């Protein structure tokens, strides 16, 4: 009997099962593979799907980055980071470039990912057809028969009601021209980043017990009608009040004193990087 301690919270059996599921998910891009979601020390719906993927993949040489809605320091990101670090001893980082494994909630980092990196996304509702069809039995069949009029219908209804596709997040995508996938609640702004991405993207839904994936260099097309093309959020008329960036996803914040809106980078580590490099330039310039 093997009496050595297991690495990274999970026992070997759990890791094996989740890795097998992941392999199947990578083999069938966009297909939701069911798996036996484990009981985790955080509550279901708080990133257990992503956490399980992270813990099954992480090795001693990995560097981990955890983001929650673009921020590295929010409570959820910090507690997940702590848990993984205490059970594995791996290094954690805020820098997107330095990380080999990135677990994220609701955002894809602004810095383009590389072939050496894996992006893990936490998913609340993996089923893009859930709003039109409540039954899992039926949605499974609809996926099998490639019958996605329900997903299109949801967009059509938005156009009828608001005059445009109003998906704030989780805009459905075709993966590899076959499966329609809910890309987790990332803003539309991030959808194009999945297309022909160099990094492997894994999506885990702990409560719904599903894992699915977008392998590197895979076609990802956002659903859009001929006369209502897919558009991302644009912030051209605004800029981050800290670093001045305007080609990234910005948060709208309100100055309580004046009641005026101001904007700030949603991806905090990207913003910090820009500020640091600006400072670097200033310092070099000053001393030169």
């Amino acid at each position, binding site marked *: 009997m093997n009496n050595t301690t297991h690495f990274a919270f999970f026992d070997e059996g759990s890791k094996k099962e989740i890795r097998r599921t992941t392999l199947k998910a990578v083999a069938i891009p966009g297909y939701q593979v069911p798996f036996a979601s484990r009981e985790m020390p955080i509550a279901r719906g708080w990133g257990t799907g992503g956490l399980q993927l992270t813990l099954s993949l992480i090795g001693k040489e990995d560097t981990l980055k955890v983001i929650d809605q673009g921020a590295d320091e929010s409570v959820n990101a910090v507690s997940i980071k702590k848990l993984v670090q205490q059970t594995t001893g791996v290094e954690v980082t805020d820098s997107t470039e330095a990380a080999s494994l990135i677990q994220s909630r609701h955002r894809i980092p602004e810095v383009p990912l590389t072939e050496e990196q894996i992006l893990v996304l936490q998913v609340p509702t993996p089923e893009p057809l859930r709003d039109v069809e409540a039954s899992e039995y039926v949605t499974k069949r609809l996926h099998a028969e490639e019958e996605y009029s329900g997903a299109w219908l949801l967009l059509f209804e938005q156009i*009828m009601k608001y005059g445009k596709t109003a998906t704030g997040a989780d805009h459905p995508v075709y993966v590899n021209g076959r499966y329609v996938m809910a890309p987790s609640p990332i803003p539309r702004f991030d959808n194009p980043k999945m297309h022909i991405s160099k990094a492997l993207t894994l999506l885990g839904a702990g409560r719904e017990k599903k894992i699915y994936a977008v392998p590197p260099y895979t076609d990802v097309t956002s659903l859009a*009608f001929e006369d209502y093309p897919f558009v991302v959020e644009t912030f051209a008329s605004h800029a981050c009040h800290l670093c001045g960036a305007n080609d990234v996803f910005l948060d709208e914040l309100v100055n309580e004193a004046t009641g005026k809106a101001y904007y700030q980078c949603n991806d905090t580590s990207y913003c910090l990087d820009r500020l640091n490099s600006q400072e670097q330039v200033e310092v070099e310039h000053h001393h030169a």
Partner: protein
Amino acid sequence: MREEPILHVRNLNKQFGRGCVHCRDKTKRQLEKNYCPTCGTVYACQDVSLNLFPGEILGIVGESGSGKSTMMQCLYFDASVTSGEAYIHNGELNGKNVFALSQQKKRYIRNNKYGMVYQNPVNGLKMNFSSMGNIAEKLIAAGNRNVSSMERTGHQLLEHVQIPLFRSKEEPQNFSGGMQQRVQIAKALSNNPPILFLDEVTTGLDLSVQANVLDLIKEIQREWGISMIVVSHDLAVIRMLADRTMVMLNGSVIEEGLTDQILEDPQHAYTQRLVYSLL
């Protein structure tokens, strides 16, 4: 020359249950009504055959439990058949038994060749989506990806079934029963299907609305030349709509002919009872 039927159904059988030694053999089958007294297997449709000719309305009457709705559900692929064949003579489907096709193909037929109006609008409509969205659903399923063209078609159809345009973005759950039924008809017609199924469309509607819906169906048939199968237990509906009529009893067709002939000169004892109970 006799015209070719647009829909030809041969020996459609539908049973609920596995059957037993007492009922599995068709020749020795001794059923109480249409179910086996030994094992309880229900033989809902037994060797139903029919022809639907282009532009005609075929009425199907029978008491409740006679298998008329089950037959319709089988033809519309809502239920699977136990055995039997059906052929649609339209375009690329010539000569193919549609019951043997794949699920995708069946879905294609449902979206492009068929229209269905259920007795209960809840089955045919998505009640929490706008009426326009409901019509668009069928167009989207048939491959349309152009919002303005779908909106145009939707407006035309809703106008045709007399739904005021300012209510087109409203959900059918806010509509009256008659309006819901008319939205369902508009949805069924959205892809210009050659075949339309109507399952007890007027049951549960009050008389003036009934007349309204029947007028609409008659008008659609005159203008668009769609072939229809109308299931009803209401002989008045059948008399008004159907060119030919089939009478079903306990899952079998017992009489078939021109509607006037069936109603004026019924041959089978059951049909006679049915017709005289009305008069």
